[in-house]
């Protein structure tokens, strides 16, 4: 009967994708290698899991006291067996560690040499954004200030400068396979390239207080032309010196 538990466990994994309970859609460039690593490890550990469980239940069934009458023998271990089942998993893990290094380096070490596209500052409980503006540099009077509404152009390298104003947060883009803790006092570069347009979530992945659950933002990936037009529109709104005419009062607020 206990066998039903691991069987159900494996069963849910097999069936889940058909119920849409699987990894979120991936629209990033490096996401492919991240997901294939995930699947590789899943299959590998899954196979080991299945074999181990089958062995476990076979032994439990074969040596069940109602069937097998020979009393248990107490041994001091089998040296050869222990060496094998230590070396084999260690080698597998070492293999995994080396196998994933390239992907890790792509995401965390090989930074594209470019000026930041946007500065993202985590704050309880929102993501404050600062675009460099026409002069291309942050910290000048033509910067564009926004909250939670991140836009980036598609098919281009994006570099984000990640900071936090108060406590630890974690900048998590599920659909781009990006997650980076924002640490107070540190300015951390985050980069990716988005391959498809669309609107996706920004989520906070480090418990930061009572509002952590609702620290949600939105990333909009759009064509370069749309992105530039959007920046212009938002900048014009930020620099308003006259009240807008009535009909367009709230448009593009």
């Amino acid at each position: 009967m206990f066998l039903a538990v691991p069987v159900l466990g494996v069963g849910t994994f097999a069936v889940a994708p058909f119920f849409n309970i699987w990894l979120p859609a991936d629209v990033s460039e490096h996401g492919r290698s991240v997901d294939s690593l995930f699947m590789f490890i899943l299959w590998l550990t899954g196979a080991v899991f299945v074999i181990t469980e089958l062995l476990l239940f076979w032994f439990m069934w074969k040596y069940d006291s109602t069937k097998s009458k020979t009393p248990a023998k107490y041994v001091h271990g089998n040296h050869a067996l222990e060496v094998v089942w230590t070396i084999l998993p260690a080698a597998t893990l070492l293999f995994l560690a080396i196998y994933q290094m390239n992907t890790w380096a792509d995401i965390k070490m090989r930074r594209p040499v470019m000026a930041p596209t946007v500065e993202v500052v985590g704050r309880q409980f929102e993501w404050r954004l600062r675009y460099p503006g026409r002069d291309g540099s942050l910290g000048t009077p033509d910067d564009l200030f926004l909250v939670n509404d991140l836009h980036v152009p598609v098919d281009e390298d994006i570099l984000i400068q990640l900071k936090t104003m108060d406590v630890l947060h974690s900048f998590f883009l599920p659909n781009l396979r990006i997650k980076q803790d924002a640490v107070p006092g540190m300015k951390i570069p985050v980069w990716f390239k988005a391959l498809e347009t669309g609107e996706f979530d920004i989520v906070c992945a480090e418990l930061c207080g009572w509002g952590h659950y609702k620290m949600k933002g939105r990333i909009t990936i759009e064509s370069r032309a749309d992105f530039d037009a959007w920046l212009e529109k938002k900048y014009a709104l930020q620099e308003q010196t006259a009240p807008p005419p009535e009909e367009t009062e709230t448009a593009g607020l």
Partner: protein
Amino acid sequence: MIEATKQRLTQSQEKQVATVLLAMFGTPDNPVVLAETGLDLEKLRLCAGPVRSDIVGRKNGLYREHCAHCHGITGDAMGPTAAFLNPYPRDYRPGVFKFKSTERVEKPTHVDLVRILHNGIAGTSMPSFALLSETKIDALAEYVKYLSIRGETELSLMRAFFELDDDAKGILPETREFLIGEMLLPASEKWLAAKESQIPVPLISEGVDLVESIAKGKALFYGDKANCVKCHGVTGLGDGQANDYDDWNKPIVEIDKELRGTRERIKVTATASMSPEELAEHVALQDWVTKLSQVLDGDSLKPRTVVPRNLRHGVYRGGRRPLDLYYRIYAGINGAPMPAAKGAVSPEDIWHIVNYVRSLPYEFDGELGADRPLIARERF
């Protein structure tokens, strides 16, 4: 102070107020609107009640989902998270709002409220609800007005008890002209008239040299007419003074003083020679002191002085558009000690001050404003 007035009422007086409010405004689950308020009941229904989805999957209970935990279920800013915030969330009940496009003592327009909901308030815990749909933001702004009108009506009703003459026998008149005409309309009419009191803004002339304008603004900033440095400090860091309270905290400070004085007097009052009426009054006073002390020591948020804005940060609560800064300087900030420059400073001069203020975070050409890698341990 709202709580102080509340504690002065007897049980039956409280019940009268509650009955009237129930009839005029309904409950948090089932709001009611009188036609005189001009509020849209459909929008209120979207915000009222528990968080749930209706038959077409539309989210309801918006106020409870997004606002009540700070602003409180009645808009009294005593929600469970309010005590952790600095600055405190807005109490809608006095009907005073800080960041708007109308003259100082007038109500904000509907669009003003929508703007605050959309952008949030930078530098405070008021979040930006830009990710909500326009319909939802619109409905929430309507609900804020509803709670504010209700709060002001409640205060009027409570105060009315102290203005009743003896033959009313402590019972409020139940006539339409009293309840709606004298209690409700003074609040709700101001909301309907808000649009008419929008601040006139002169267009900026095309050929204005920014450098010149900033220099003029600086002179005005330090000058006598505007005298910004008195509070904002000679360095613009907001260290001019920090002794004043805003209109939501001031009553608490004053009532606290009054309470302490009253407690002292009660202690030394000799009750032996009092007439029955005097004794009854004395007991009622003691009762009030006890109840109010419990409120002030318990639920009530501890008063804080209001700190003038540090203009070097470039964080502007009411909005960072030049237009928003114009509104702030022209009309001051309702409920806060920031005075109105209207009248003392001409509109063109106000624009000069706006330009100067906007240059303050960047005044030292990269030293203070630019993204310099000094404090952060950076990996660039």
